[in-house]
């Protein structure tokens, strides 16, 4: 036990002494999560709208006045459809509205009035969401005599804000990647520096060495998680935490151990830190894709849906979302806990035996 503590503290010391590694970890847990959370925008924001109005104002201007900030910039007028098309082509304008000269006449006389909409579909999600906005504006504009009202209730994420989702998902991916790389590096650095042999020759049970070394890296990542939660998740994005904080920390701990298992495997087969970096990415990418981090699992091909059952990250993400947004009771988290634990134990045992063979 004393040896265990000794090795852990030695690894923590070496970690703190390698400034490069500390910076990478700090960056990943703070700036990286923040950038991911705030950078990926699907809602329209500051969309530049251009228009050509041949009607002389009236209804057209009323419609345009509904496009306001922060979603839209004040609409810009163009004199001809040609000028508008050019502006869209040059990416100066994302959405173009064309009111033909018979638009107002048709509208007033109750005929079918038509607005032509030009969308820069290369900014696919932004322009399509803009389209939905415009449709809503037009629906609002028509006074429909239809006895049906749509009253929506947004559950779990009242602001329907995707910062919190993306930031949280990014944090979970960062945890995965870092624990794999850090665990692999503590072993591979010894191989690189030639201290591996000396480590083998100390009369310490190899099992303790492996356990202590991987545990030290789990500790580093857990500390990073706390930092990230405090400064970014709760601090910058104000993500609600409806469930238990400790349930999340416990789930994270178990998950880190399972990822450390992958790290052990990477360490066993790599000769230097360069190979660790390459191999970790190759192994982690499918795990992250299959986990439902970026695409919901139900939207995947059935084969991938089945495969995703084997990604511990899937259970971790679903469990975390349950804790944060749904506020699930601890006892009801058992499917996620058991998923992470079972896969984690298997992965860790595999990695443990793989690296154990080198001792």
């Amino acid at each position: 036990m004393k040896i265990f503590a000794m090795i852990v503290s030695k690894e923590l010391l070496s970690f703190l002494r390698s400034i490069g590694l500390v910076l990478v970890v700090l960056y990943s847990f703070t700036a990286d999560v923040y950038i991911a959370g705030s950078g990926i925008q699907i809602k329209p924001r500051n969309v530049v709208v251009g228009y050509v109005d041949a009607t002389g104002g009236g209804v057209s201007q009323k419609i345009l006045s509904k496009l306001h900030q922060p979603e839209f910039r004040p609409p810009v007028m163009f004199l001809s459809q040609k000028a508008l098309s050019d502006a869209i082509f040059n990416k100066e304008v994302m959405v173009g509205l064309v009111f033909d000269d018979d638009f107002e006449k048709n509208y007033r006389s109750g005929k079918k009035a038509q607005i032509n909409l030009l969308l820069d579909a290369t900014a696919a999600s932004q322009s399509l969401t803009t389209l939905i906005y415009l449709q809503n504006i037009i629906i609002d504009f028509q006074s429909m005599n239809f006895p049906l009202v749509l009253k929506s209730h947004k559950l779990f994420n009242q602001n329907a804000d995707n910062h919190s989702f993306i930031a949280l998902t990014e944090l979970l991916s960062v945890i995965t990647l870092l624990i794999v790389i850090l665990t692999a590096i503590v072993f591979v650095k010894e191989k690189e520096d030639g201290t591996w042999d000396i480590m083998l020759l100390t009369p310490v049970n190899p099992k303790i060495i492996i356990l202590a070394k991987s545990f030290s890296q789990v500790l580093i990542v857990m500390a990073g998680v706390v930092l990230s939660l405090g400064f970014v998740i709760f601090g910058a994005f104000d993500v609600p935490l409806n469930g238990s904080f400790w349930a999340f920390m416990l789930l994270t701990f178990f998950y880190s151990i399972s990822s450390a298992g992958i790290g052990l495997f990477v360490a066993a087969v790599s000769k230097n830190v360069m190979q660790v970096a390459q191999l970790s990415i190759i192994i982690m990418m499918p795990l992250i894709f299959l986990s439902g981090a970026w695409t919901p699992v139900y939207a995947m091909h059935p084969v991938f849906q089945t495969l995703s059952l084997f990604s511990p990250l899937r259970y971790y993400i679903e469990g975390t979302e349950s804790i944060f947004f749904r506020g699930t009771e601890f006892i009801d988290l058992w499917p996620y806990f058991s998923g992470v634990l079972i896969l984690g134990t298997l992965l860790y045992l595999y990695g443990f035996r793989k690296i154990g063979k080198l001792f």
Partner: protein
Amino acid sequence: MSLLEVKNIRVSYKKRLGIDNASLEANSGEIIGFIGADGAGKSSLMHSIAGVIRFEGEVVYDGIAYHSPKEAEQVKPFIGLMPQGIGLVLYNTLSVGEHLEFFADIRNVKKDEKFQAYKEKLLHMAGLSAFIDREAGKLSGGMMQKLSLICTLLHRPKLLILDEPTTGVDPLSRLELWEILDSIRKEEGTVILVSTAYMQEASKMDKIFLFDEGEIIAQGTNKELIDSIRPYVYEEVTCKEECLSFNKRTYSLKPLHVNRAEPTLEGLFFVNALKKKKLLPQVVIAKRDKEIAIPPVVMQAYGITKRFGSFTANDHVDIELKRGEILGLLGANGAGKTTFIKMLLGLYPIDEGELTLLEKVIKSGDDRQTLKSKIGYVSQHFALYNDMTVRENLIYFANMHQIPLKTALNRIEQYANELGFKEYMDELPTALPLGVNQRFSIAAALLHEPLVLFLDEPTSGVDTIARAQFWEILKKLKEQWNISILITTHYMSEAEYCDRVLLLKQGKKIADDTIENFYKTHPDAKSFEDIFLTYYKDVE
């Protein structure tokens, strides 16, 4: 005017000085030798002259002056450079013949009859005529170096720069390399700059430059240099101040009342250190904390064999290590020294053979577990944790060996004093001179008071004085602790300091005897170099 003139070369790297204030002159057909430890500035000077690194100062070759790699382009057709490291310029999957074609092509050599004749001659000199079709990766270290050399010679350079071509090469190939150099300079009038780690090669050089810490400390012919320190060299005697003894000689700046002894070239380094007062502190070794019964035979191995694929690294090697004995495992690079030590330690599985360590037959890894606390090991290049200070490293090792903290701290303090690295305790290993690193590595290996010590090339690249003092440490350890030491080295001359020597060649044991017996059976040999040469020739 000389063919090559080098004026006040200075090379500095980010944190340290490569070489400062180096000047030399060389004439056609001369062999200029550079001798010194790793990091003494030999390579920096060579690379400057070859025009491959940036430097301050001026080099004039045949009236063409250059001050930078760019300006040096015009002399490159006349220069041949062979960098340090065995087989570094070779491609493992190309054959000997293909190498010659390739090097002729990149140097744009016209392949006429004259070239063919010259190529044949080089191949013959290098003894590679029979191996034209063999891949370079399958050649021995010595053959690789000979191939590298003739590849460098193909375009008939007038200035040949060879960076440690003989280090780690077997003695026979080393002789042959020198023979090639000798005939080339005579026939082609080439200026040859060659650096070496072996003092014994000095006699083959026309002019010698001794390097120490980025400085040329002495220059002249072998004889001049040896004569220059004649007044300071005495027969071995105990003395206290401003003097030091090594290898049956005592060096002192103050006159001593004993007979003078015949100086050697390495004595120059001792005298230089005395003059500059920058000796590493002397060492003392105290008795063990408690005496331990050690069996008379510490290790026995029969028919130890290791294969890597089709390559046999160790072929049925027998070895016996007795109590209180320093056993030297000598051989060139690739002779199987490190593989052998790693098998003894259990770092590689043994493919064939029997091993008994401290009276315990080793069958599996579990048999070793209890022995680990009785074995000390210093690996090649003194591998230690570079992000922890010397003190932290030692405390860590003590803990790994489960030495009670109080005992451990006392012992660390004691070794730091005895081995003289106390002032470096709070520095990182990367910031230390190689000689200090060497001492502190051995302290790390001694913390748990082992019964047997395995040292893998602990003296390689270390400067003469640190090496001499390191051997002193080993000798005292043996006397005080009755410890057995197995040490590998590629310096044949270091056999002198061992009790018994085992010579390896290409994985096979070719000689195994005590030092006295070696001298008895070879009465007319001048040095160990000569004795081993006879064994190498016999096996050939």
